[in-house]
């Protein structure tokens, strides 16, 4: 016990701690400083302790922008709470700044009264200059008056703690300063170290000296907090009181998509073919699936976006469940082939992890500006169902649902996520696999009366007949065609008929999806309607406004094409409708066009998610 004070006495100090319902910490440093790993560890430990957690990583666009500069910063924001959380928080109460750039870029975000931990060793002349400081702000009197400033010589302290680990270079030892910082933050919030120690043991299993160095730095950081009593008091964030029982884990949106696709393939008893070309922020889906080949997942890293799309058409034609993912620019390249999938009426899922556009735009930042692209960015009349999960965890269900719709209705389906939900994480209740409904994916084998474009009455789906089936040989292609026979036809009536049939087929999906749920008054002054990754901020903003006594309701669309069948009716029941979006008003545009309603818009295109207060201000302005 004496050897391991940090580990075993973690909770002995609890009675000293000040209690808070939730705290937001922002870890910020150079992209080489290990901020993602540090934030991730803090989040995992908190989740395991029973807090709700929500995270928002913020990566630089360049792999290694110059060290010490603001563009080179990598940030990880974690919100952990005793109550249910919906976002990673508007602004941090604790900022860990590993260098001057991190201080400069993030100080204005820190709540007044917040705690500011800085690595004083990094405040060298060179780093100060790179961050754009003329003088060292830490030496200015009263420069941080409204904050609690904790100056820690992180590099020096880490070096001292690891002095005798000779097998590691100074550089390697210095890398452990993030572990020291993490230890200090663990102390501050009375968190145990075991989880992270175990993580080091697994991650660096082959390098025992690295395990030792990180573990020691972590404990040194923890003990440092204890020794210097740097903070006015420790803070305790209790576990959540009411949580649905079950086994939980953290999940990011991209991970959830991977799991959803694999689950769909298993539930349909089909191999999964995934063709994709690397692109930020969708690549983790390709990487995730490439590691799951024992689920009969076949990943194909194509030569370009077009080939990725074409390969999944081929795989679908040959009977696999198939999917691809990209982001806006890649979807643009795929669009000709997507139309081939539309006319071939084959099942497949196309995932668009939206990022800031247009053109290359902001690859690592989030935006919702591809809604109109996926709906209309192709030649001709090209209806495709679009589903959009609202949270990282929902990406699992909607990836599965997209596959289900694709197979049931024989159509490509868009799954529209964004950089925010793709990369951020939340606790996810692990579903009971046996309870997940099977996907009926029978291929027709009966030649009797078969026609390639004959249709089922309820869905208008054509039969999925795959090569290898005797007696059902047929040809399909992109040319104009006659319904039922599928024969090439340029006949005016044939063309109009099949165009209308495809539209009706997609429209009919509305009979199979859930109606829009409303939270709040069933009718009244204001409905806030959102879609996609803005869910958390909208939900929290509306909840807070309701608590303040405002009459405001909230709904969140998961199906953008077709819209839920009750949407027209819901819209009529409110005097005003507010649509907050991370674009210039694309859903608003659709609602106005479809339902001839007037829509209040709240738009933001900064590559960042909404803050709760931004939405609250708009709601209050509309209702006051």
């Amino acid at each position, binding site marked *: 016990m004496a050897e391991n004070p940090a580990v075993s006495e973690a909770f002995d100090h609890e009675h000293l701690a000040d209690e808070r319902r939730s705290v937001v910490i922002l870890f910020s440093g150079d992209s080489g400083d290990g901020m993602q790993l540090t934030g991730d560890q803090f989040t995992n430990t908190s989740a395991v302790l029973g807090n709700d957690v929500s995270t928002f990583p913020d990566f630089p666009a360049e792999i290694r922008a110059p060290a010490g500069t603001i563009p080179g910063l990598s940030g990880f924001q974690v919100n952990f709470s005793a109550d249910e959380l919906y976002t990673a928080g508007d602004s941090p109460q604790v900022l860990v700044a590993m260098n001057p750039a991190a201080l400069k870029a993030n100080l204005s975000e820190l709540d007044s009264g917040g705690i500011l931990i800085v690595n004083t060793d990094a405040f060298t002349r060179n780093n100060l200059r790179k961050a754009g400081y003329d003088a060292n702000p830490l030496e200015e009197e009263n420069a941080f008056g409204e904050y609690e400033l904790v100056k820690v010589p992180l590099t020096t302290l880490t070096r001292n703690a690891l002095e005798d680990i000779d097998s590691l270079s100074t550089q390697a030892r210095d890398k452990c300063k993030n572990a020291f910082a993490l230890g200090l933050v663990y102390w501050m919030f009375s968190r145990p170290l075991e989880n992270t120690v175990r993580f080091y043991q697994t991650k660096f299993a082959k390098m025992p000296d690295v395990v030792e160095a990180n573990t020691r730095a972590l404990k040194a950081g923890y003990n440092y907090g204890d020794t210097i009593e740097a903070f006015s008091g420790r803070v305790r964030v209790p576990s959540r009181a009411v949580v649905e029982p079950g086994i939980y884990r953290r999940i990011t949106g991209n991970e959830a998509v991977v*799991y959803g696709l694999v689950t769909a393939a298993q539930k349909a008893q089909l191999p999964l*073919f995934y063709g994709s070309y690397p692109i930020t922020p969708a690549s983790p889906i390709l990487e995730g699936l490439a590691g799951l080949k024992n689920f009969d997942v076949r990943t*194909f890293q194509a*030569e370009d976006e077009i080939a990725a799309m074409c390969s999944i058409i081929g*795989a679908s034609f040959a009977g696999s469940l198939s999917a691809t993912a990209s982001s806006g620019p890649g979807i643009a390249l795929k669009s000709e082939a997507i139309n081939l999938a539309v006319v071939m009426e084959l099942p497949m899922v196309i995932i668009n992890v939206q990022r800031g556009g247009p053109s290359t735009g902001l690859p690592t930042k989030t935006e919702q500006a591809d809604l109109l692209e996926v709906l209309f960015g192709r030649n001709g009349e090209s209806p495709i169902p679009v589903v959009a999960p609202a949270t990282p965890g929902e990406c699992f269900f909607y990836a599965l649902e997209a596959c289900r719709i694709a197979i049931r209705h024989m159509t490509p389906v868009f799954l529209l996520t964004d950089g925010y939900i793709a990369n951020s994480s939340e606790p996810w209740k692990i579903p009971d696999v046996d309870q997940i409904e099977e996907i009926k994916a029978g291929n027709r084998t009966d030649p009797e009366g078969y026609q390639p474009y004959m249709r089922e009455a309820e869905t208008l789906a054509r039969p999925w007949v*795959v*090569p290898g089936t005797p007696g059902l040989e047929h040809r399909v292609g992109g040319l104009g065609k006659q319904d039922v026979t599928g024969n*090439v036809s340029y006949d005016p009536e044939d063309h109009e008929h099949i165009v209308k049939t495809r539209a009706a087929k997609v429209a009919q999906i509305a009979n199979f999806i859930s109606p829009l749920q409303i939270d709040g008054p069933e009718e009244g002054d204001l409905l806030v309607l959102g879609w996609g990754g803005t869910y958390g901020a909208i939900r929290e903003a509306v909840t807070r406004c309701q608590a303040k006594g405002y009459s405001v309701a909230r709904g969140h669309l998961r199906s953008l094409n077709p819209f839920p069948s009750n949407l027209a009716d819901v819209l009529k029941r409110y005097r005003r409708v507010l649509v907050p979006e991370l674009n210039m008003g694309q859903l608003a545009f659709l609602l106005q066009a479809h339902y001839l309603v007037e829509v209040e818009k709240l738009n933001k295109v900064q590559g960042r998610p909404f803050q709760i207060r931004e939405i609250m201000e708009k709601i209050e302005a509309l209702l006051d």
Partner: protein
Amino acid sequence: MSEVMEEKTLTRKDFVSDQEVRWCPGCGDYAILAQMQKVLPDLGIPRENIVFVSGIGCSSRFPYYMNTYGVHSIHGRAPAIATGVKSANPDLSVWVITGDGDALSIGGNHFLHCLRRNVDLKVLLFNNRIYGLTKGQYSPTSLEGHRTKSSPMGSIDYPLHPLSVAVSAEATFVARTQDTNIKHLSQILQRAAAHKGTAFVEIYQNCVVFNPTAWDHTTDSDVKDDNILYLEDGKPLIFGKDRDKGIRMNGLQPEVVNLSDVDEQELIVHNESEDNPHYAYMLSRMEDPHMPLPFGVLRSVSRPTYDELLLDQVDQAVEQKGRGDLDQLFKSGDTWTVE
């Protein structure tokens, strides 16, 4: 069992679809279609396991006329679609029908990458050195100076050599044949079908409407034998109407020699399975007027195919980790339980 029976009873007619063929009368495509329909019954592949995939162009209408599974896709993309088909079901015999514009211009990227991956596909490129379907613009194989509707003063593009492109792109099987030489065409189709891996065949095809003289030097009876070198594995490179000419190396260059002056021993002996692609590349660059055009199989080497390797990895993963279990997957990493 039914498959075995079908193999025996299949005839050319079984491969003829009910669609009316719509190429111009006299087009070289007819002969290729007919040979394909003749060759397929002999391959012993059940009809339902055959898939034709094409892009856009005159030749790309081909799948509609074959009573097999087929996809008439979009311009240039057939190799990518076919890769998906073959990866989903490696038991299928997958044929890509393409043209000079489809494969080498708009679809150049897919063409290259399908060859380098060695996906088990048969790629037939109908080369007529013109855009036929769009009514006569110059193509990436049109010769310099070719006057077409879009190059009234003559094309200023240097043409691509399809065989050279294929060899450079790591193709494991590279061959050339011609629409009018039915016997040779049929042999080469059979060789392509038998190859495991991407089999690339350039077929000189006559567009009677927009480029009718493109292949005259290989079809006119008085000159063709002096312009074509029929490759035979293990045999010296000999050609000419009277088989009186041969090819030998002179330093780093091949040269045409007269057999009356030179001993046959000095000639290059064709070796299609030479692993190093230099030799096949050299053959692919032989062109009139100084050299004969090689017909036949330039290169045929064996290498594991993409589809084979892809499924091998699935099997390996199952062997190493066991068949995927969703519950286990979801619970990998840090979890916690709420009671």
